[in-house]
């Protein structure tokens, strides 16, 4: 069960109407290392985690990733909402607009639609937690690419916040990996 708060985790103040930037940051809305993939990866892995600390951290971080997905969708929309329809053709946002109008939709910056093949749940706690640590590094790297691409100070500010969260998540998964390894060692006998 979830409790929902009617505000963003971090305030988003987009400074410009910027369809080019919208079509780039949508990578984190529906891309392989984006927030939706992260949320579904962690929330899906909860059931087979053998210790309560691992279930808790996956639920916490998976929930936070949904809040990040909400932030990215908000930024994508804010970057295009005031764009006059006559000015859309010829921008990198035009292909998105042809299908979805101004609604955010989970696909990556190249237009490939979101797919569950971006993540896995192996039913193996060690394999899962290492996937999650790698996922946090890939998300951090993507945020650094996007920070370099961004020419909107408000978007850059939010991207920096989201990037730092990936570092915190990596630390938490690393601590969880240790707990899982200790637990698996205590169960192992040949």
């Amino acid at each position, binding site marked *: 069960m979830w409790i929902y708060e009617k505000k963003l985790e*971090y305030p988003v103040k987009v400074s410009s109407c910027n369809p080019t930037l919208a079509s780039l940051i949508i990578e984190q809305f529906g891309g392989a290392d984006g927030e939706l993939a992260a949320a579904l990866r962690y929330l899906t892995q909860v059931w087979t985690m053998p210790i309560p600390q691992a279930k808790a951290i996956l639920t916490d971080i998976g929930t936070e990733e949904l809040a990040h997905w909400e932030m990215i969708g908000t930024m994508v929309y804010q970057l295009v909402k005031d764009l006059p329809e006559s000015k859309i053709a010829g921008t990198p946002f035009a292909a998105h607009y042809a299908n979805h109008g101004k609604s955010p939709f989970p696909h990556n910056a190249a237009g490939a639609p979101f797919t569950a093949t971006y993540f896995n749940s192996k039913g193996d706690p060690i394999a899962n937690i*290492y996937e999650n*640590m790698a996922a946090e590094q890939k998300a951090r790297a993507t*945020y*650094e690419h996007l*920070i*370099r691409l961004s020419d909107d100070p408000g978007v850059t500010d939010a991207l*920096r*916040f*989201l*990037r*730092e*969260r990936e*570092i*915190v998540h*990596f*630390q938490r*998964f*690393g*601590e969880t*990996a*240790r707990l899982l*390894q*200790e637990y698996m060692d205590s169960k192992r006998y040949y």
Partner: protein
Amino acid sequence: MQAIPNPNAPMNMANPYPNPMAMPMYNMPPEIQLARAYVPDQPYERLFPLNEALKKGTLFPNLYQPYMQKRN
């Protein structure tokens, strides 16, 4: 210099976690094994003030690793 909240102070806005010193302070496990990845446990040191923590994306100075953009 930032104010360093007293970790044993009762829960309030500047110190949202009561008695954090009860957290274990150990670092790496005593026996390191091959073919495993280890991240040291985070020592509980001090906290950013909450308004600053929100801006930075973490409550913990020892986890704050901001991206430094190359100028060119």
